[in-house]
């Protein structure tokens, strides 16, 4: 049996890991409650006067309240994510390095690997592969879009209030409140599709390379055979 030497590299800061799992919990909560708000597939307590329904079971009012609280948490964690990127180099891996040759080489290699024309142990090693560098900014944009449309609609119950003046414009930009509801709904599904693919590619990476991809979001470390091409991005 050949023993391979592996280099242990510290990639994910504690702040980023906490943010990732907070984000996971809020997005799951927001999606589940949001689905009910968009399509109320079960009725609340029906045997009582509406006034007393709160104590009797799951109501639309409670589900919306959970949705709004999770929305506030999502916003706070998003701001936190931007702040840690200001202070730490390894938290700034999200933008595609379009101006660098290694990005394009990496994009070609990862595409060939994903369409199975290239083995995963061939080619260069990356701290953050080009596909992730391309897709993550879009996910951040999608989350930002959900925050703006969400708080826009939330705030319009008081059109002169803080949230309406901050994000109310999006409602008219998207052509009215009804369209804003629909956009909010569609992009929610896009984020869930991303989540499915995200989990799949992480499991795939772990299963094929056994490089600690799966545990890296808990302990921060990943294993590399050689020196990753974009090591300078975090050190």
């Amino acid at each position: 049996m050949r023993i391979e030497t592996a280099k242990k590299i510290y990639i994910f800061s504690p702040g980023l890991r906490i943010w990732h799992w907070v984000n996971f919990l809020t997005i799951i909560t927001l999606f589940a409650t949001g689905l009910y708000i968009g399509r109320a597939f079960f009725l609340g307590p029906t045997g009582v006067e509406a006034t007393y329904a709160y104590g009797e079971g799951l109501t639309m009012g409670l589900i919306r309240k959970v949705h709004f609280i999770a929305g506030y948490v999502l916003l706070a964690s998003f701001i936190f994510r931007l702040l840690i990127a200001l202070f730490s180099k390894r938290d700034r891996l999200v933008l595609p390095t379009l101006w660098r040759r290694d990005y394009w080489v990496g994009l070609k290699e990862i595409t060939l690997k994903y369409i199975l024309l290239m083995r995963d142990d061939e080619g260069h090693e990356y701290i953050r592969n080009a596909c992730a560098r391309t897709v993550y900014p879009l996910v951040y944009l999608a989350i930002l879009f959900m925050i703006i449309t969400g708080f826009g609609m939330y705030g319009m119950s008081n059109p002169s209030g803080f949230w309406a003046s901050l994000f109310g414009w999006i409602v008219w930009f998207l052509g009215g409140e009804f369209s804003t509801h629909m956009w909010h709904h569609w992009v929610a599904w896009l984020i869930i599709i991303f989540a499915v693919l995200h989990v799949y590619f992480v499991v795939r990476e772990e299963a094929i390379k056994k490089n600690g991809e799966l545990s890296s979001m808990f302990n921060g470390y990943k294993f590399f055979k050689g020196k990753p091409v974009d090591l300078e991005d975090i050190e």
Partner: protein
Amino acid sequence: METFWEAFKRHGVSRRDFIKFATTITGMMGLAPSMVPTVVRAMETKPRVPVIWIHGLECTCCSESFIRSATPLASDVVLSMISLEYDDTLSAAAGEPLEEHRKKIMKEYWGNYILAVEGNPPLGEDGMYCIVAGKPFLEHLKESAEGAKAIIAWGSCASWGCVQAAKPNPTTAVPVDKVITNKPIIKVPGCPPIAEVMTGVVMYMVLFDRIPPLDSQGRPKMFYGNRIHDTCYRRAFFNAGQFVERFDDDAARKGWCLYKMGCRGPTTYNQCGSIRWYNGLSYPIQAGHGCIGCAEKDFWDNGPFYERLTNIPVPKQEADADRVGAVAVATAVGGAIVHGVASKLRNSGKKEG
């Protein structure tokens, strides 16, 4: 022109009734009770304002609504508060003498009259889809707007385009603010707008000699600040999760929330929930039918009216966002499994070379 107070005296209205009237309309305009003296003062001093009311591509439902205003009575507004000089639907005169009168009034009160526009101009075929007084309405509108102090865009037609501008908009009908860009325009959307909202806007403009505070969409804030959902008397049923699921079910008889029947109350800004219709008698939701969102832009294109989520055009399927989303996620999961197995096979064994 005589003032309102003079016009009231001429009609034999007592001072007491006059003050009562001033107090009522202060409330109707959404102003604080402390504004009553200001309103009284304005009614004693401000002359009546000449109004030219023109009709384009429309159904006249705005006029129908307006003449049913109860507080104040539309007749009071038309006969005592404003000086309605031209309205080709309401006036007894017709034809050339009426058109001559419009031109005379425009010249006489140049820069001081209010132009009320009901309906909108179609731009297609040089505006030939709507002819008023032998000319395209487009020209009629531009000519009348020239000397106006401000323009009131009555209804969803003049404000957003409404049904004639719904896809595919065969006549290229456009809202008034696409054609007239150099005048202040007050949008009073609704199909039709609530009568008291219409008279409220007119009164505000003539009494204070300025346009009411508008939101970013050009609608008077005091009438279009709230969603119907946020003022709806059935809101408690929404919060409790008590929904009507069919128009003939028990919940419908109990008067529960119409959210699942496609009610557009949550996305529509209007006063139906508070001022209501026919002197506060009722409004669509109170009558048991969901709101169709008639005061909102492009409400005809956001169908179907009885569905909460709009359809996504999928060939040969009726599909809303949730169905398309679920299929897409299932496809992603299935694809991931297949791809995963293939990846594992591709990467099995030793590295070649």
